[in-house]
């Protein structure tokens, strides 16, 4: 019987009641009295000099309140970047100003040139269309290699080139790696592209700025994964508003996947403009705007080389990547191709020597930043693809070559050559479970059955690792982070024993309102419905870093556990007083305090009431009340890992790929709510399969975004995907957080792309078609062309 409450119970979500009845409160559902609307005039050229902006006629149109251009923002800072990378030569990265409104030049399609505030959204849009814009178009820099070439046009005139940084990990290993590769019996090389994606949370971004003249307080309602981070960045670095006068609220948020981490121009604009025009200012993004203003993801071009001995043992690995930053540095952009990517190149394997080089490049495209997985999918993709190619070249089984190189269970803690220490894991166990669930033995029969129908069937395998809950703060500070990476919780016990938890993390689909109470219910022994989770408002939660990088339960959940432990410790003191026993003899179980070895007991609610009505209470030793806050800074990352398999059928006539089955075996450590974890994996898999088969942001040579709507950007739909088999029964609990949890939000998106591509290549190879690699997305035309080229 599965548990029906507490940790490990698949309890249904309380969030669902409001979402299923249309009573959610997303930012666009909020309308403030007197609210005006802003429409942003965006650049339709990728690179150009603004010669003239004629706003006179537009300003005179019906309903127009005010038009803003860059001139109105002269005293306002640019959007700050939260991570500084140091280049191999010791210089800091190039960090050009990222203005709220374009200053003199436009650098990507979609950059804001002017903003019109009017009584209605329609009037604002009509007036924006009437602004006269004269832009002298300049040659656009789109391709990364060309951007680094001699004499390439520069995205930022005041920088020496389009290079943002040139980073190495670990620089001291560079020569050793070169030498090992030179001398190895086998070197397998793969050049590949990890294409640019649009995150596409279904809720477009929204911002509402509000200013209260009487109190001099600003409020921003925004679609954010981390309201405190927005308050800090916008308040301190952009607008100069102190935190006690700035409140940021992120109510129900309709998905983020990374794209709602970052501080965006539109948020700062609405906050600033609300004070200037003396009215609340609202902006709701259209999907078309989202395509050209939400930070995009991935966009790496990589060459990877794996050196092996005769038995298929990995000897050394070298990875060289060009990473696209787009036109400006988005909030965490520099961290993604570096510390979230290079550090993952050991994977689940014992490769003794690794060197990673990443050159980050400015181009006339929308800024790129973290998108579900952020750097880890890019690392996993190249590694798991080159291993598959190596198995083929050495004539080895792809499962066997992986197993042979696994870090073994007795080798933990395991220090990789790329700066991580894995605390725990058991890669053999997940792979064995996969072999069982995916029925690898039955594959040949299924392949023959497909062949009889004229289809090529292939099997793809991958054994990924990822790193979640990036930490500790003092380490990430050395690596260039301009923020701490702790999280926080205030646990407020109410007089009659119910509990309100204010957490610094944010739920936008992750189910915190359901899962976090399960933890406290387990610890205290009261029902979940006595516990409420509050998040998303800087006015009532302690400073927290928000939700991304699968960190909520590992970091925010741990903070909540620590605060609850303090609560329990204090409550035991109160109970000891009430029971006239010594504190050391008090036990808490099932919502009751008992004196060890006796039948004397006092209920949880009697103790909490005593804390707030302290008539019979040790006031000399103990303050009244029962409320505690904890800030938790993890000692290390957590390291979820897993083994994935999928089977595909390729139609050799059309190149169409069908995913027949997908099995994901993940080790997430301890699991709080298995139903929710399954759901997180499903969603990640869909996004990863979307990347593998369908999705891509395409820019033409002039920097026009060709895929700027759902007509051209292929989102995975229900009939593109199979049902999934998901398992998380292999559990090696994290050794350094109190819950033994690792995080599960990104695994699916990290592990699935190489699994799919490996399967397609396998199908072609088994069909006698010599294709080594096809770049994602594996659309029918790409697969068909590869088949043609090979035959």
């Amino acid at each position, binding site marked *: 019987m599965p548990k029906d409450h507490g940790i490990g119970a698949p309890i*249904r*979500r309380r*969030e*669902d*009641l*409001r*979402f*299923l*009845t*249309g*009573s*959610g*409160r*997303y930012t*666009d*559902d909020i*309308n403030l009295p007197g609210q005006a609307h802003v429409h942003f005039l965006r650049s339709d050229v990728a690179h150009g000099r603004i010669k003239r902006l004629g706003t006179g006629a537009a300003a005179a149109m019906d309903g127009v309140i005010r038009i803003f251009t860059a001139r109105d923002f002269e005293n306002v800072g640019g959007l700050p970047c939260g991570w500084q990378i140091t280049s191999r030569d010791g210089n800091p990265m190039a960090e050009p100003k990222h203005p709220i409104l374009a200053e003199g030049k436009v650098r990507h399609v979609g950059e804001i040139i002017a903003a019109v505030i009017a009584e209605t959204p*329609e009037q604002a849009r009509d007036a924006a269309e009437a602004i006269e814009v004269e832009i002298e178009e300049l040659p656009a820099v789109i391709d990364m290699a060309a951007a680094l070439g001699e004499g390439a046009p520069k995205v930022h005139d005041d920088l020496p080139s389009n290079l943002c940084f040139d980073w190495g990990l670990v620089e001291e290993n560079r020569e050793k790696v070169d030498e090992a590769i030179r001398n190895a019996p086998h070197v397998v090389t793969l050049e590949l592209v990890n294409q640019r994606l649009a995150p*596409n*949370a*279904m*809720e*477009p971004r929204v911002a509402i700025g509000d200013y209260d003249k009487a109190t001099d307080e600003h409020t921003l309602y925004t679609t954010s994964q981390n309201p405190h981070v927005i308050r800090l960045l916008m308040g301190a670095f952009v607008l100069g508003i102190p935190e006690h006068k700035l409140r940021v609220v992120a109510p*129900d*948020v*309709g*998905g983020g*996947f990374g794209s709602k981490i970052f501080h965006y121009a539109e948020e700062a604009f609405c906050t600033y403009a609300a004070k200037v025009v003396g009215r609340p200012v609202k902006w*709701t993004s*259209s*999907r*078309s705007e989202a395509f050209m203003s939400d930070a995009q993801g991935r966009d790496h071009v990589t060459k990877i080389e794996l050196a092996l001995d005769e038995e298929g043992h990995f000897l050394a690995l070298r990875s060289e990547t060009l990473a696209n930053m787009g036109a400006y540095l988005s909030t965490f952009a520099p961290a993604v191709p570096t510390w979230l990517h290079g550090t993952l190149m050991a994977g689940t394997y014992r490769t003794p020597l690794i060197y990673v080089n990443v050159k980050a490049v400015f181009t006339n495209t929308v800024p790129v930043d973290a998108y579900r997985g952020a750097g880890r999918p890019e690392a996993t993709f190249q590694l798991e693809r080159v291993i598959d190619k190596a198995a083929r070249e050495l004539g080895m089984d792809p499962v066997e070559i992986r197993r042979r190189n696994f870090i073994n269970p007795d080798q933990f803690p395991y220090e990789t050559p790329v700066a991580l220490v894995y605390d725990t894991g058991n890669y053999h166990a997940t792979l064995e479970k996969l072999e069982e669930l995916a029925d690898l033995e039955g594959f040949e029969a299924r392949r023959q059955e497909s062949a009889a129908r004229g289809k090529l069937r292939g099997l793809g395998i991958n054994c990924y690792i990822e790193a979640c809950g990036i930490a500790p703060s003092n380490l990430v500070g050395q690596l260039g982070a301009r923020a701490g990476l702790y999280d926080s919780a205030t646990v407020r016990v109410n007089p009659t024993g119910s509990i309100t938890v204010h957490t610094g993390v944010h739920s*936008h*689909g*992750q*189910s915190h309102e359901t899962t976090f109470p399960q933890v406290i219910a387990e610890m205290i022994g009261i029902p979940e419905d006595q516990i409420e989770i509050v998040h998303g408002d800087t006015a009532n939660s302690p400073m927290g870093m928000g939700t991304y990088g699968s960190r909520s339960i590992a970091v925010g959940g741990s903070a909540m556990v620590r605060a609850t432990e303090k609560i329990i410790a204090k409550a035991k003191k109160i109970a000891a007083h009430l029971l006239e026993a010594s504190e050391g003899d008090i036990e808490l179980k099932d919502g009751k305090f008992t004196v060890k070895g006796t039948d004397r007991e006092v209920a949880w609610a009697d103790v909490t009431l005593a804390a707030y009505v302290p008539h019979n209470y040790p006031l000399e030793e103990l303050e009244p009340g029962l409320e505690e806050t904890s800030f938790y800074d993890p000692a290390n990352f957590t390291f979820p890992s897993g083994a994935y398999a999928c089977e595909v059928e390729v139609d050799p006539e059309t190149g169409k790929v069908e995913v027949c089955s997908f099995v994901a075996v993940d080790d997430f450590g301890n699991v709080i709510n298995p*139903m*929710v974890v*399954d*759901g*997180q994996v*499903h*969603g*990640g*898999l*869909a*996004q990863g399969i979307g990347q593998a088969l369908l999705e891509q942001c395409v820019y033409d040579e002039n920097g026009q975004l060709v895929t700027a*709507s*759902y*007509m051209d950007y292929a*989102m*995975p*739909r*229900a*009939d593109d*995907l199979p*049902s*999934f088999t998901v398992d998380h029964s292999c559990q090696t609990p994290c050794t350094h957080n109190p819950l033994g949890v690792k995080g599960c939000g990104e695994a*699916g998106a990290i592990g699935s792309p190489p699994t799919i591509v490996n399967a397609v290549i396998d199908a072609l190879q088994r069909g006698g078609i010599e294709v080594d690699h096809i770049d994602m997305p594996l659309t029918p035309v790409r697969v068909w062309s590869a088949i043609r080229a090979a035959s």
Partner: protein
Amino acid sequence: MVEISMTVNGKPVTAQVEPRTLLVTFLREHLGLTGTHVGCDTSQCGACNVHVNGMLAKSCTMLAVEADGAEIVTIEGMAAPDGTLGVIQQAFQDHHGLQCGFCTPGMVMSAAALLRENPDPSEEEIRAFLEGNLCRCTGYHNIVKAVRAAAEAMG
């Protein structure tokens, strides 16, 4: 301004609207029924799905004036008056068919339309029918399960 009248979730409403007002804008901004969402501007995500005279319709692709005289049902009209979830809504909760909830109203309206025309759809038929609804969170797996379960419960 044009005067329009319709029945929304069983209640008669009459209002003055600009002729260019979309039905979704009318529902959200004029009637405050914010359960119907807008996820795109090219009629492709289905977040705005409602029922118009019993037929599934994308309310972002219809003018409010076109709905003059019509019977409209939105997500707010899908639970019983006492708040008890309808069979489809309950199946979505039971099978974790939603995460962020943004696509959910449209999904529920689509599922209701499907089960009305095909009370016992196969997994493949469910996937094909939901082709007009985008969800970025769930990977559709649990949505498909929920719709199947609802079909069985209504059986």
